């Protein structure tokens, strides 16, 4: 029974292509800027207060790894793509319930568990498209401007971000199952993912309150550590994966019990 997976995958193509396109443009912009900026970056690092860089986890801006980690991954990947997955997750159930598509879907001999699992599985489309697409663009972009990117670190930053993105989708999915309206689910999911990132970033500035950020997903994905210092936190990725499975389990239990 893969009818739902097929149709849901097809629905994800357009958004994925648009997002990859956005990253192509962004990458082109930043790679074009880097050669002329790299020398000024050291001055920049001195000019700005340290908390500004700490907020985004930025370091070694004058290297291509540090620059791209800061410009592409710290902001656009962690926040923008995180929000996209939260938004997509939040639409999975609530939107179908609201427009009555779910009525006909569930009139088929297909269980509610299967509906959720197939819909979540369809997120393979943006996951593959973005990770392969953006990794390629960044790698090629660096070569074009005469720099080079460690391909292992680059692959790792994408691989280890997958559990993070799945947790964002999981947050959206749980809200999607609980909320009566897709709008509520989506706006709550986006807000939650953004606030989590903010809590993580701000709490990270002060060692006394740093523990607060331990409940936020972005705490377990450190793009700068991976790209600049080549530190691969597999245990953290494991924690995110477990969190995603818990969220998925909660969504399954709630959805099988609710009226649609």
């Amino acid at each position, binding site marked *: *029974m*893969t*009818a739902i997976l*097929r*149709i849901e995958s097809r*629905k994800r193509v357009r958004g994925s292509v648009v997002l990859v396109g956005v990253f192509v443009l962004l990458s082109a912009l930043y790679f074009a800027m880097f050669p002329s900026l790299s020398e000024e970056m050291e001055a920049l690092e001195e000019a700005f207060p340290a908390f500004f860089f700490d907020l985004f986890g930025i370091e070694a801006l004058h290297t291509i790894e540090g620059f791209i980690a800061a410009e592409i991954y710290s902001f656009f990947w962690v926040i923008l793509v995180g929000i996209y997955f939260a938004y997509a997750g939040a639409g999975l159930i609530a939107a*179908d319930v609201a*427009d*009555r*598509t*779910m*009525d*006909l879907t*569930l*009139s*088929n*001999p*297909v*269980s*509610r568990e299967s509906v959720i699992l197939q819909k979540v599985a369809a997120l393979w489309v943006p996951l593959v498209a973005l990770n392969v697409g953006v990794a390629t663009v960044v790698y090629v972009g660096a070569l074009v401007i005469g720099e080079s990117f460690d391909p292992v670190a680059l692959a790792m930053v994408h691989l280890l971000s997958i559990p993070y993105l799945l947790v964002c989708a999981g947050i959206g999915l749980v809200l999607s199952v609980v909320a009566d309206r897709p709008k509520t689910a989506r706006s709550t999911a986006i807000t939650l993912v953004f606030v989590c990132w903010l809590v993580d970033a701000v709490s990270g500035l002060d060692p006394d309150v740093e523990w607060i950020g331990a409940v936020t997903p972005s705490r377990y994905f450190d793009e700068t550590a991976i790209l600049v210092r080549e530190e691969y936190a597999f245990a953290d990725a494991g924690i995110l994966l477990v969190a995603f499975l818990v969220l998925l389990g909660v969504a399954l239990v709630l959805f*099988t019990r609710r*009226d*649609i």
Partner: protein
Amino acid sequence: MSAIRIDDLTKRYGEVLANDGISFDVDSGEIFGYLGPNGAGKTTTIRLLLGLIKPTSGTATILGTDIRDRRALTERKADVGYLPDSIGVEERLTGRQVLDYFARMRGDERRDELLELFHPPLEKPVETYSHGNIRMLGIVQAFMHDPEIAILDEPTSGLDPLKQDRLHQFLERERDAGKTIFFSSHVLSEVQRVCDRVGIIREGELVALEDIDALLERSGKRVWVHLAEPVDEARFATDEMIDLEIVDSAVQFTYTGEYNALIDHLGEFDIANVEITDPQLDEIFKHYYGEGTPMERTDGEPARGG
């Protein structure tokens, strides 16, 4: 065997009882009309039968499968066709893609045969469809896997009269082939035309459950009389007359008493012309719903009840 057995089925939304202890059976091989105005609770019963919502109390079975047994009901849906009152499908898909999608889940051995009767523009995206085309697409998907039971929620709404007729004939053929049709409607004439039995629901309660013929019989006769001269209402009226209207020498009323008594009574007057017919269900309806015909009642539905 009963194709559908509904047993004290109750669904409560806060203070609103969308279905209040409803019990009835639908026999195999009959067309059962589930009749009531918008908001009476028809859609709630249908959504309960399909397991889309859970009963507050009571239960029902479809082909012997308890609707509270989620897993068994999921499998049973291979034998059920469903046409919702409001059809939700992925609007960017073409009609053909929508049918392919459902076919992957439950088969489509009768698709071509159905598309000869009902032909939505299959190559166009559903978002460009008119109401009638969406409804035809819904009818095709509801029957294409050759289900034992078809549950149809307001199946003719949006169809032009020709297509309505075609659907009615199709339903009769399905019934004759042994299939069970459960269909809800607030269009009384179509229920009268195609249904074998009818259940009437009002504010969540089943108020009547009868053969159409028995219902018509029990509901008396519609009588129109043209007298030779104007008549006084006090002299003409009897207790068995309902909705009596007198304009000069023309009189019409619904008669609920003994026919002999009616003939004897009319014999006391000089009659120029007379016509005695079965009442329209609309008129029978009035007796269940009081003033205001059901067609005029479009007040909001209690939390998705219908």
